[in-house]
């Protein structure tokens, strides 16, 4: 209590260290660099068994019979389960529509669908036993595209649909449809001096997180189960798992184990239910770890898409109208398709002012691999197409492509096609200006002082197949808009439990949420928020589990906004409670307790004028303050199903890219020399992490521009390249320097003014690279990824 009687002025230096706006380091960093951090695939239990999934080898078939007798008889095998072993009437799960069978029943609808499960004492025994299960299939014709899906006599992927989307679609093989009509596009088209049309194809991208789907299920004494798993949303998993197991939610206790990346690919259930079923059946802990091959079948992918666009513009460069149809292939099960349709349609015009639009987006049911969430979520595909259109229009009008975009750039107040105003800063023109103003990287970096070219700097690198003869440079630009958070009326809340107490004479805080830390750095930011709001240095982040209320998903760029907002809000209430204790104890010592605005800083109670009133430790003594509160951002509404009108989104984030590429036109090889990016983040809570997120997102966009694609055989709907040998993701040699320019224009509606940042950089990266390749080669290039055969004109099909 030494300070209470003798107020002193606090200096700047006594502000709490490690608060928001600082590049504090990850609390899990040391564990991660020493190999001690426990990822889900590292879980281990004495006496545990290994689970293995048997997956269908065909895409669409009736299951005639399953014979497990040989597998069951193998030594070391503890259980073999099929659909018939499911314990309750609930046999399906799903994020929005419960159409995904835990194990196939009667029919398989895509290549790699789970059909049976094995538990054994060695992973190899489990694999061999699974291989001994005999399944007889009667193959059915496969539906692989819009034409085969919507033919009047098409086989239905799901007969007897009973979800609420079915009423709004023209064919049962369409999962969801969202038209958006505003103004009169036909009328406005008459004002156009030029009209461009384009048909674009976006390939199927994979999240390719490095940590495989994995986890450990441990049966508990009360008949329930404990599940340690890598996921993006514990409570959403719980809601889908418990009913299938026939257990009340309290009996399924989930704890987040270390997550090796996610990017949307862990939003759906993978091995969770399977491990629990095997554990409950055998009475032993069961661990499942997918290998990379299985991982490609174990999660949904980014929707491949066909996009048909028409834009018009006047000769002075103003956009007149836009019409588009976006066809997303959702594959065999719905996953997040309805929401992806909502995003693709509502963001299909991009960050531009166009009053007259006619839009339709649909997602198909097919026998292709199921598609769902991936970073950028529907906005990525649209951005690829509308940015190509902008370049085409600019070229036709003879206007510089950046200038053309700036002429039409949205600003704060611009209406989206849904009629919703963008009510926060929208610095689209400025972001473009910034990437354009950046000095260009030097040309022909392979030319060295001596005679010998430095082949490492050439497209193709050390393969040493050229000395630069056919290499041309190109520059391209793109910009995009992404919504933040869950839209269309979803109750997108989060919960935080915060405790402050005195330990060893120092006030410390504990933050407990169910937020999935998937690598994005949420735990770092939560500690920063608690330090800022509570003025303590020591913050412990409690492991994420289902003992606290839902945090919602670590996706949609929402977690810092929503769970960060929940932590902030709970801290504010905790602070009030702490100050109340202070007033009670010390109120009579100093009038400021009653009259001044009080803050907690550097472990002390201070006035907004900087006067110290008390030590936090003295206020609390042995009292602890703990609160658990839910927090919501402002509500949204569903889009009208016929017109698409409605205030469906919460917030937007914007990024612009400039790509510089060098293309070897003889070999069809592309080297991205530089990919610079400018993004508005509202407020950078942790600048180091912000830049890391932007660079990571940019690289995933680069990947889908030039190499990443899951190739599905159009005749059989089988996946051809489920491996890191054949599905390529960028290496450090494929990835250029990524200079990042961060803008901080606060969104007054968001905590600290922040904007979700994770997804926006994935949008414009791809079209910028494509624009640069077009600029270098003069080719039209309407599909992504671009492959050598597209550049050399040797494409076979």
């Amino acid at each position: 209590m030494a300070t209470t009687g003798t107020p002193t002025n606090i200096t700047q230096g006594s502000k709490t260290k490690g608060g928001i706006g600082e590049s504090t380091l990850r609390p899990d960093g040391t564990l991660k660099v020493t190999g001690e951090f426990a990822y889900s695939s590292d879980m281990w239990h004495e006496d545990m068994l290994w689970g293995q999934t048997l997956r269908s080898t065909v895409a669409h078939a009736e299951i005639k019979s399953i014979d497990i007798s040989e597998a069951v008889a193998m030594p070391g095998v503890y259980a073999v389960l099929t659909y018939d072993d499911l314990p309750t009437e609930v046999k399906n799960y799903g994020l929005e529509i419960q159409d995904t069978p835990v194990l196939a029943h009667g029919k398989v609808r895509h290549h790699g669908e789970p059909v049976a499960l094995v538990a054994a004492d060695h992973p190899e025994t489990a694999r061999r036993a699974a291989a001994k299960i005999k399944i007889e299939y009667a193959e059915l014709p496969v539906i692989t595209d819009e034409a085969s899906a919507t033919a009047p006599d098409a086989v239905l992927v799901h007969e007897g649909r009973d979800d609420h989307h079915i009423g709004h679609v023209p064919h049962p093989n369409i999962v969801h449809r969202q038209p958006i009509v505003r103004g009169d596009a036909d009328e406005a088209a008459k004002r156009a001096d030029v009209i461009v049309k384009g048909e674009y194809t976006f390939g199927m991208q994979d999240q390719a997180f490095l940590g495989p789907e994995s986890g450990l299920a441990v049966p508990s004494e009360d008949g329930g189960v404990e599940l340690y798993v890598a996921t993006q949303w514990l409570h959403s998993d719980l809601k889908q798992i418990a009913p299938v197991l026939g257990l009340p939610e309290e009996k399924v206790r989930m704890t987040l184990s270390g997550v090796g990346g996610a990017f949307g690919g862990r939003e759906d259930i993978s091995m969770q239910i399977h491990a629990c079923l095997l554990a409950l059946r055998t009475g032993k802990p069961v661990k499942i770890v997918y290998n990379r091959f299985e991982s490609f079948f174990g999660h949904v992918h980014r929707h491949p898409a066909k996009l048909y666009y028409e834009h018009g513009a006047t000769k002075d460069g103003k956009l007149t109208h836009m019409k588009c149809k976006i066809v997303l292939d959702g594959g065999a099960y719905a996953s997040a398709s309805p929401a992806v349709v909502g995003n693709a349609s509502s963001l299909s015009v991009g960050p531009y002012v166009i009053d007259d639009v006619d839009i339709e987006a649909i997602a198909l049911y097919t026998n292709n691999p199921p598609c769902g969430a991936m970073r950028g979520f529907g906005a990525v595909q649209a951005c690829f197409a509308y940015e190509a259109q902008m370049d085409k229009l600019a070229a036709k009008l003879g206007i510089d492509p950046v200038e053309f975009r700036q002429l039409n750039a949205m600003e704060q107040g611009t209406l989206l096609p849904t009629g919703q105003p963008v009510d926060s800063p929208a610095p689209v023109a400025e972001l473009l200006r910034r990437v354009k103003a950046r000095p260009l990287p030097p040309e022909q970096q392979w030319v060295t002082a001596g005679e010998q070219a430095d082949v490492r700097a050439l497209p193709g690198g050390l393969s040493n197949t050229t000395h630069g003869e056919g290499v041309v440079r190109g520059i391209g630009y793109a910009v995009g808009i992404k919504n933040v958070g869950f839209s269309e009326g979803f109750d997108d809340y989060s919960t935080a439990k915060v405790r402050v107490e005195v330990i060893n004479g120092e006030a410390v805080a504990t933050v407990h949420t169910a937020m999935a830390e998937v690598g994005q750095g949420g735990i770092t930011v939560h500690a920063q928020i608690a330090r800022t709001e509570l003025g303590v240095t020591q913050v412990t982040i409690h492991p994420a589990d289902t003992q606290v209320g839902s945090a919602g998903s670590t996706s949609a760029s929402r977690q810092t906004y929503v769970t960060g907002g929940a932590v902030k809000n709970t801290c504010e209430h905790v602070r009030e409670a702490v100050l109340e204790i202070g007033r009670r104890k010390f109120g009579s010592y100093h009038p400021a307790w009653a009259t001044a605005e009080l803050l907690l800083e550097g472990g002390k109670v201070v006035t907004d004028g900087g006067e110290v009133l008390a030590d936090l430790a003295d206020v609390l003594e042995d009292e602890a303050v703990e609160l658990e509160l839910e927090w919501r951002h402002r509500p949204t509404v569903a889009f009208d199903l016929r017109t698409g009108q409605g205030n469906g989104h919460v917030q937007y984030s914007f990024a612009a890219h400039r790509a510089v590429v060098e293309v070897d036109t003889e070999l069809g090889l592309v080297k991205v020399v530089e990919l610079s990016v400018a993004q508005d983040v509202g407020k950078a809570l942790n600048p180091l992490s912000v830049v890391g997120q932007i660079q990571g997102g940019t690289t995933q966009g680069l990947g889908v521009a030039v190499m990443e694609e899951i190739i599905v055989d159009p005749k059989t709907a089988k996946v051809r390249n489920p491996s890191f040998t054949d599905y390529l993701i960028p290496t450090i040699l494929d990835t250029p320097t990524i200079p990042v320019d961060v803008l901080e224009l606060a969104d007054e509606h968001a905590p600290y003014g922040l904007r979700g940042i994770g997804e926006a950089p994935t949008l414009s990266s791809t079209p910028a690279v494509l624009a640069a390749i077009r600029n270098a080669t003069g080719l039209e290039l309407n599909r992504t990824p671009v492959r050598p055969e597209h550049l050399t004109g040797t494409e076979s099909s």
Partner: protein
Amino acid sequence: MRVNFTVNGRKQEADDVWEGESLLYVLRERMGLPGSKNACEQGECGSCTVRLDGVPVCSCLVAAGQVEGREVVTVEGLADYAKHREDAHPGGGCASGACGTSIDAAQRWQAKPLDGQTGEAGALSPIQQAFIDAGAVQCGFCTPGLLVAADELLERNASPSDQDIREALSGNLCRCTGYEKILDAVRLAAARQEEAV
């Protein structure tokens, strides 16, 4: 079969090893050393990189039987390994790794010709500290493999150019970072190493 080998300086014996088991499996599931990661188990991602008699290898591609009588260093032993290297070649003085070079300075840092300088000691190896400081760790799944590869690079080449770093790490995939901060981390470790001389 039984396999005898040294892991992180300690003699180990693994019994009942099935012929098809990889070194990665033996390390993770039998030795209780899960630091080496299992991201592809097909030699494509580098997450499982360890040093086998000093040479970086994908432990998922090494049959357990092949390591009989040999020496393995995993990420769990990296700090110790760097320390012993330091004991053998004293000279570095940066115990925590945090000896004054900022990331900005490291980014401006230019590679110099090879001078045979090696690493320095600390609770964490300099490359481990640099990965944390530079923000090169996000989900961290790629990190152990990258650390082993980067440490070997710096042992061999104390002043790597960006091209050298890219070549040395081209067998290690990272899905989160976009690699820029990984480059920063290697530059930072190299710069600190140089300053410490």
